[in-house]
């Protein structure tokens, strides 16, 4: 196989390699070996994604025809700036986190189940990358379910028996969401006879007014379906428990990637399919989205303030941050979308760091209840330094990645002539200040608790991913070519297609 071949087949390799990795891991019995295989696979992913991004930036969108069948008949993998960006995000964050997994998973999961854990992890990764790369709406459903089913298993592997309840709850809601999605796609299929996203969009474009009704119904189904997956307030109820009781690494991985991919799908459906075909403004769908986003930004943040379990606190924070992302989306202008996409990126980095810190806390102190963590910041100085940095990123202080997101979102709101929204954006970050500040107070200024007494910074292979993500939080607060630069290009492409 020549070098050219490899480059040509990168889109399929992006999905095939983790899939094969998952299969091979399933044959293994020893956790460490499984980790090794999963790690190698995971580390390959950003290489492929990076190459794809470069290629896309250079030569424009890539279309890869599975089985050699051209779209719209066959399944098409389609990589444009947005999808390459999300691919790189998902794979890079996973790759950075991977070293953390070995000890954390070995600590939290029984020996004979570890290989199974990595199988599910790789399967989930496959699903997430697949959703992002495919240009086929039904194929996206399949990948969605691959990632979801493996996620349910990952969550159920948590140590607490409540993990089972969380998994069950998510299974119910996630399945309803996915079914709504596939109903929406089914309606579009009934109307257009096509499943290829680009093809659907072009066919919808020629729809007459009386055909709008099923299209609007389809849009409603898709919106609800994906909203469930991305935990858009008030469809978020599955998320706090899922994040709280899943194994720490799974939580970090999911928080950093899964909802992001759901957002990606949202963007695709809204901007690449419907936005191209019909005028979304007329449907007032964005007004609803805006209202929900604002509710998420405030209510979920406030819930986070009252949460005593730190994983749940961060989970509520995630719901709030998803609100930011959909907020920018609802603005539907260049700056707003850029904010949305760049926050997708930044939040992945930030939340990844925060959840890894909690993973390290579980590893060292055995609890993530706030009451147990007095003085832990002094006992785990580097870990909590990372927590503070990432926390600042969550609040959106300048010099962190979070600020860049808020900057664009605020500009987007102003561009729309909605300057009061600017205040709502910043006001909700104040709530983040409260819940992060609360942790900082306890961790640094409260008397050392029993659990914290024996704690110390985790081993290097756990610490380095944490520090790397914290450093990235700062790096992407200053150097944004990779984050905001790419996001802006992606937003431009999405906005450019709008009707």
């Amino acid at each position, binding site marked *: 196989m020549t070098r050219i071949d490899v480059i040509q*087949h990168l889109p*399929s390799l992006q999905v095939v390699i983790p*899939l094969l990795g998952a*299969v091979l891991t*399933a044959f293994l019995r020893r956790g460490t070996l499984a980790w090794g295989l999963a790690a190698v696979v995971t580390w390959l992913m950003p290489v492929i994604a990076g190459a794809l991004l470069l290629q896309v930036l250079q030569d424009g969108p890539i279309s*890869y025809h599975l*089985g*050699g069948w051209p779209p719209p008949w066959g399944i098409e993998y389609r990589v444009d700036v947005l999808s390459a960006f999300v691919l790189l995000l998902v794979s890079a964050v996973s790759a950075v986190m991977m070293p953390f997994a070995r000890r954390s998973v070995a600590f939290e999961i029984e020996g004979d189940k570890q290989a199974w854990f990595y199988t599910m992890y790789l399967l989930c990764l496959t699903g997430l990358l697949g959703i992002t790369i495919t240009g086929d709406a039904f194929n996206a459903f399949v990948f969605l379910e691959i990632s979801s089913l493996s996620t349910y298993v990952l969550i159920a592997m948590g140590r607490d028996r409540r993990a089972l309840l969380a998994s069950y709850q998510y299974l119910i809601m996630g399945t309803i969401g996915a079914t709504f999605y596939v109903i929406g796609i089914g309606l579009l299929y009934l109307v257009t006879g096509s499943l290829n996203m680009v093809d659907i969009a072009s066919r919808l474009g020629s729809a007459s007014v009386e055909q709008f009704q099923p299209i609007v119904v389809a849009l409603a189904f898709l919106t609800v379906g994906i909203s469930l997956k991305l935990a858009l307030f008030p469809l978020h109820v599955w998320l706090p428990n899922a994040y709280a009781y899943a194994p720490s690494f799974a939580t970090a991985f999911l928080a950093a990637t899964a909802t992001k991919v759901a957002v990606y799908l949202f963007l695709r459906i809204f901007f690449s399919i419907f936005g191209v075909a019909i005028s979304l403004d007329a449907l007032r769908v964005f007004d609803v989205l805006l209202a929900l986003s604002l509710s998420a930004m405030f209510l979920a943040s406030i819930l986070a303030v009252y949460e005593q379990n730190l994983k749940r606190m961060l989970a509520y924070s995630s719901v709030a941050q998803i609100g930011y992302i959909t907020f920018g989306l609802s603005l539907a202008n260049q700056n707003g979308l850029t904010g949305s996409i760049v926050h997708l990126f930044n939040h992945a980095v930030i939340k990844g760091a925060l959840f890894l810190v909690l993973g390290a806390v579980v590893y060292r102190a055995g609890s993530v209840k706030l009451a147990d963590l007095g003085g832990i910041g002094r006992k785990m100085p580097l870990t909590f330094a990372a927590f503070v940095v990432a926390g600042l990123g969550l609040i959106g202080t300048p010099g962190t990645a979070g600020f860049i997101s808020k900057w664009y979102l605020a500009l987007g709101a102003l561009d729309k002539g909605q300057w009061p929204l600017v205040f709502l954006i910043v006001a909700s970050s104040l709530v983040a200040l409260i819940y992060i500040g609360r942790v900082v107070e306890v961790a640094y200024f409260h008397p050392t608790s029993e659990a914290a007494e024996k704690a110390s910074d985790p081993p290097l292979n756990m610490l380095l991913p944490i520090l790397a993500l914290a450093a990235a939080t700062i790096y992407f607060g200053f150097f944004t070519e990779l984050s905001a630069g790419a996001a802006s290009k992606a937003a431009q492409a999405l906005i450019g297609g709008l009707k």
Partner: protein
Amino acid sequence: MKLDLILRIGVKFLLPFVLLFALYVQFHGELGPGGGFQAGVITAGMVILYAIIFGVDAAKRIAPQRMVEFMVPLGVLIFAGTGVAGLLLGKNFLDYSVLAHDAPHGRELGIFLVELGVLITVSGTMTALFYAFSERGR
């Protein structure tokens, strides 16, 4: 009388036809609605039916647990590997046309292999799940 007569005779009579029907579905997958998945479900159904009537231990003697669990990733490996074979032979992923001397035969072979993989995985999964359930409460 150890076994319920009616169940035993009914199931004994039915089982060979169930398996044959599974194989029929397997081989006619690309012609009508069907294929590896249904075949796998039906095959597993056969094992389950056998286990219900003759006991799980008897079923495990015929289809040992280790084998069943091994079948799950094996099947995935077969169908994913078939797709990769297309890749390795210079075509796109899932392009089976290069698997044989001419494209139609290659595709036929590819589909056959994929369906086989699906059959193995699905029947393995379903049977493994059944075994897992039957162990609970013991």
